[in-house]
């Protein structure tokens, strides 16, 4: 094998960093995004290839076998995952990145101790990478379990939770400090254990509908874990790559929190959905709900000029994106103008609805962000809400007493009429009743979203 010097390899890392930056730049437009992804992947390949060609790297069988195992799992996962399960996939990928950072930090700690050369700043980075990586790993696995509904999605809370969490985190840091003082790898592994426990405790009280924020936050943590590992190894490729991911995750976290009109701290520590049960009960009285039939809705839709579809998590759960697209096709054949209104936190991760509708081959020019579609609702004849709840609740704009007051919503109530496809009258995640359902221009079509949409397609075609 060729043996390269560190200088040459550092130059290759610079090339890799440039590829990452250009790749993300290309992700700014759907036309260039795919190329951007390839450019970033090329950067990664360059970084790995040059690292393997370093003079001191000689355990090729060892590295190759580990990479083979990872590649098989990675390829299988990427091929088999359903688009509706993308949040779970991203959660696991975050966790893998975090776990790798922690593993690197602990191994390097052990190596430096053996050589008796452990500078204080490297030690600090090791502690950071171990704790951050560990909590990212277990937190992501728990987020996965919640999204996959292996455990209940509702917040799990107990008295004194935040005190316990803080204590566990303090223990993790303390153990890591002891590891540094005694130069004992066992202590560092114990610190990793505490960080793993903390990651679980951290995600437990966060509910299903807050997952967009959590996944973005864990994304940021996985990047920062990589940065810490980069400081451990004085490696610019890790630092730049990790910093880009950290920035991305942080920005998305803030965007998601803003779209819920809540602070990140409130999402993480608020156990939203748990507190509002009593408030939800208060609002039930007053107003009646009018159920409708697929035939009535089909008439409404077929003779409309403009229809705006507002999809939500219910559409994802029912896997109804393909049927939704077919319904839109049937309407467009009749000359109806159909648009989709996408709320930033609809679904379980940033951009979830866009991916699902893209899978159903809805052209992205038909997908409208909240700010762009809201002015169009007053001109719409029908707003068709498919499995979205809290993001359409007008209480967010007109009821200061509502827990979701101030949250930006899709203003479906501005349309001439509103049809809501919903399984039952159960309140949404926030536990708040949706005033929309009691509105005089709203009718409800109860049932599984997929069944309802299928019936609508048949009924529209019969018109």
């Amino acid at each position: 094998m060729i043996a390269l010097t560190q200088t040459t390899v550092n130059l290759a890392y610079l090339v890799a960093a440039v590829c990452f930056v250009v790749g993300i730049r290309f992700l700014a437009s759907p036309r260039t995004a795919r190329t951007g992804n390839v450019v970033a992947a090329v950067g990664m390949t360059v970084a790995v290839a040059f690292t393997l060609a370093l003079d001191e790297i000689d355990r090729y069988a060892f590295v190759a076998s580990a990479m083979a195992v990872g590649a098989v799992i990675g390829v299988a996962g990427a091929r088999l995952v359903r688009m509706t399960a993308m949040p779970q996939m991203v959660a696991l990928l975050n966790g893998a990145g975090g776990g790798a950072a922690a593993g690197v930090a602990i191994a390097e700690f052990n190596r430096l101790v053996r050589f008796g050369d452990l500078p204080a700043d490297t030690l600090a980075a090791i502690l950071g990478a171990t704790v951050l990586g560990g909590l990212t790993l277990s937190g992501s696995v728990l987020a996965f379990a919640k999204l996959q509904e292996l455990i209940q999605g509702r917040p799990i809370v107990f008295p004194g939770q935040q005190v316990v969490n803080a204590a566990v985190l303090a223990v993790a840091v303390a153990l890591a400090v002891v590891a540094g003082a005694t130069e004992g790898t066992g202590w560092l592994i114990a610190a990793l254990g505490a960080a793993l426990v903390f990651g679980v405790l951290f995600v437990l009280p966060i509910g299903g509908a807050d997952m967009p924020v959590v996944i973005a936050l864990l994304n940021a943590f996985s990047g920062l874990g990589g940065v810490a590992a980069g400081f451990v190894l004085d490696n610019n490729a890790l630092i730049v790559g990790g910093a880009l991911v950290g920035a991305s995750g942080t920005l998305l976290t803030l965007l998601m929190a803003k779209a819920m009109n809540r602070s990140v701290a409130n999402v993480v520590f608020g156990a939203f959905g748990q507190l509002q049960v009593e408030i939800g009960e208060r609002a039930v009285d007053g107003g009646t709900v009018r159920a409708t039939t697929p035939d009535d809705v089909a008439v409404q839709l077929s003779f409309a000029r403009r229809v705006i579809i507002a999809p939500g998590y219910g559409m994802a759960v029912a896997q109804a994106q393909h049927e939704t697209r077919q319904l839109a096709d049937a309407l467009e054949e009749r000359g109806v103008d159909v648009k989709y209104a996408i709320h930033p936190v609809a679904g379980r991760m940033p951009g979830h609805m866009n991916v699902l509708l893209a899978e159903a081959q809805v052209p992205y020019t038909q997908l409208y962000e909240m700010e762009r579609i809201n002015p169009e609702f007053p001109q719409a004849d029908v707003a068709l809400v498919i499995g979205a709840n809290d993001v359409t609740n007008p209480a967010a704009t007109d009821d200061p007493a509502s827990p979701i007051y101030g949250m930006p919503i899709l203003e479906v109530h501005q349309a001439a009429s509103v049809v809501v496809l919903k399984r039952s009258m159960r309140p949404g995640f926030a536990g708040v009743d949706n005033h929309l359902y009691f509105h005089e221009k709203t009718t409800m079509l109860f049932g599984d979203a997929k069944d309802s949409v299928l019936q609508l397609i048949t009924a529209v075609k019969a018109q």
Partner: protein
Amino acid sequence: MSDELIQSLTVFVLAAFLGIELIRRVPMLLHTPLMSGTNAISGIVIVGAILVGGASGASTLESVLAFVAIVLATINVVGGFLVTNRMLAMFRRRDRDAK
């Protein structure tokens, strides 16, 4: 603080600012592929794992940790880029772009 640390910090801070400016331009439409794509980039930690475990002389513990780290980072890289590619392939401008 060592000079290396200052240099690393400089690189980190500048890259973070650059990252924020880059990510700002990405539309909501592409936020899911953005997450999975950047996720794959965070798999760059694979380089660290190779450096730690790829040279002979690593102890058993280091080898085990490095092996696990390489596996996890490879899942991150390979899974991340492939799934991002799969998603992005679905985004079409108009109906007739469909196959």
